[in-house]
C-alpha cells in the first residue's frame, strides 16, 4: 500500500517520517493495522535488528493479514493486542523496564502513534529516540473542545461527537498531550446548518 502524502499544514500538526534502523541495545516497535508494513520494510533493511526487538501490534480491521508475517520476523517478543486501550498497561510496563538507549518505532494510524508517543515521552524516552511512520487510514483521533470527549477514528468532516452529539468540524490544531486533534461546533452561529460530511482529504 502506498503511503499517504499529507498536505502541508499548520505548525502544531505532527509530521511523520520513514522508519530507519538505528543502533541500540533494545528496540520497541508499536504499530496498528497497515503500520505492520512499515515494520516489515524496516526489518528487511537490517539483519539482526529483530533479535533485539519487542513488537506490540494491534491489527484493528486488518485481522490476520499481517500477524504471521510479523511473527516470521522472529522478534525477541511479540504481542498482538485486541485494541490500543487493552495494550496500554503492557506498554507502560515495557517502558518502565526500559534502559538507556532504547529505540522506539511507531507506525500506523495517527491515533496510535500519538498515544504511544505520549506514553514514551511520559516515561522519559527522549524525542530523538522515537521515530514515526504513517501507514494506512487517515482517520483521526478527535477531542470535542466542548465536552472534552474523544472520538476515535474520525474519517469525515464534519462529524458527530460520540459523547455529546454536537456537529464538529475537524481542525488541524493538534495537542500532543491529548494525542488528539481539536473538534469545534460547526453550526454554533447558525444552529442546524450542518454541511454534508465529506471524507477527509477527499
Amino acid at each position, binding site marked *: 500500500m502506498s503511503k499517504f502524502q499529507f498536505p502541508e499544514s499548520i505548525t502544531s500538526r505532527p509530521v511523520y517520517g520513514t522508519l530507519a534502523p538505528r543502533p541500540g541495545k533494545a528496540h520497541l516497535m508499536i504499530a496498528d493495522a497497515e503500520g505492520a508494513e512499515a515494520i516489515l520494510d524496516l526489518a528487511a533493511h537490517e539483519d539482526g535488528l529483530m533479535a533485539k526487538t519487542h513488537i506490540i501490534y494491534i491489527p484493528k480491521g486488518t485481522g490476520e493479514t499481517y500477524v504471521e508475517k510479523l511473527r516470521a520476523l522472529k522478534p525477541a517478543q511479540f504481542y498482538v493486542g485486541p485494541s490500543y486501550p487493552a495494550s496500554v498497561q503492557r506498554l507502560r510496563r515495557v517502558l518502565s523496564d526500559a534502559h538507556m538507549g532504547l529505540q522506539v518505532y511507531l507506525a500506523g494510524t495517527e491515533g496510535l502513534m500519538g498515544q504511544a508517543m505520549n506514553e514514551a515521552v511520559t516515561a522519559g524516552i527522549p524525542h530523538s529516540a522515537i521515530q514515526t511512520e504513517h501507514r494506512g487510514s487517515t482517520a483521526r483521533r478527535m477531542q470535542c473542545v466542548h465536552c472534552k470527549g474523544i472520538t476515535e477514528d474520525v474519517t469525515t468532516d464534519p462529524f458527530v461527537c460520540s459523547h455529546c452529539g454536537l456537529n464538529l468540524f475537524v481542525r488541524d490544531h*493538534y*495537542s500532543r*498531550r491529548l494525542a488528539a486533534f481539536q473538534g469545534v*461546533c460547526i453550526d*454554533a452561529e447558525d444552529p442546524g446548518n450542518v454541511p454534508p460530511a465529506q471524507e477527509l482529504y477527499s
Partner: protein
Amino acid sequence: MTIQFNNETFRNDYSFRNSPWAIKRFPFPFHEDSYMYSVNMEQHRGGPAGSVYEKRFDVDEHYLSEMADRALVLADDPLRCQSLPHMTLAGWDVLELIMTCKSEDYPDLFELHRDGNRWRWINKPMGIDHSFTFLDETTLPQGPLEYITRQTQGDFAVLDQRDEMLWMDAGMITTQADWSLDFDIGMNFFEWHAPVPLAHEMGIFQRALKFLLNVQQGAPARRLNWTMTVNPLLDTSPENYHKWGVQKTTLTPENIGAKQHLRVELQTFFRLPRSNALLFPIRCYLIAFQDVVSVPKWGRRLHRVVRDLPEELATYKGFIANRPLMIEYLSRFDDGLPTSPGIWPDLETEPPLQK
C-alpha cells in the same frame, strides 16, 4: 484616586458598562489608521498618570465583577486553571510578583506583610485577610497560581523556558479570545500560535520568540492585541462557543452601537526570579462601539481600520460576517479628517465630528 467598583455582569443581562473615566483611559489599540501584525513590543515601565499602563497590574472599576465572573467560570469548568507538575515554583513566583506589585502600586487597596516565609496578604476590595507560609502549598486554599489569579484581573499564561523555547505549561484562562488552555497546555510557542493566519509567514513569531526569550527580571515588556466581541462577554472560550457563537447573529443596525464591543488585550511579560519562567498576563478590556465613537479620533480611525482590514484577519478574528454592518455604523463617525498619530484620545486637540 479611589476606585468606585461597579456591580455588573458579563453574561445573561450584560449590565457591564464603562464609566466616562474608563472610556477616556481605554487602551485603544490602533496607533494609525490601518492595522497589520507587527512585533509591537515596548517596555512596561509605567505610562501617563491614570492610563492602563501606569501600574504593573492595572486595577479598574470592573475588578470585583470580573473576579465574580471568573469564579463562575471556574465553578463550571475547573480545567480553565491548570499547572503542569513542574510549574508549582513558577506559581509561587507569580503570587509573589502580583502581591508585591499590587501592595506597592495600590497601598490603599492591598497590603503585604512579610516576616521571613510567614506572609499576611490583605485584599480590601475582596475582603480577604489571609496569613500563609510562602512556598508551602498546604497553607493556601488553592495552588499559588490559582489563589492569586482569582484575585487579579486578566488571564495569565505561565511559560516555561527551556531548549531556547517557551512552553505553555500553566495558566488561568477565563477571559480568552477563543483559545483553550486545556487543549494548548504543554505546547511550545509555535504550536499554540499555529492557528493564527499570515503571521507565521511574516516571521512575526520567530521575532517575537527571540524577544521574549530575552526578557530580563525587572524589565517587563508589553503590547496590545485586539479582536471583536458581540455583547460584553468575557468568557469567549472555545469550550462554550456552541453557546455564545449564536450571539454574533443578533446584531442589527439599531443595536450595534451598544452590542458590538471592541476587545483589547493588554499583554505584558514578566521574567520570574526562581523558576526563570515568563509570566504572560493577558488583560481584557471591553468597550461598546457607541463609547469608542464618543472619542472623535477613535471613531474616525476604527472605521478606517475595520474597513481596510485584510479578509483573512477579519475571518480569523471572527467578525467577517458582521463587517458590513460594522462599517455602515462606523462610517457615520468618519468625516474624512486626518487623525493624530498614536493611540491616545487627544480630546483637547482633535476636532469634533464634522458631520
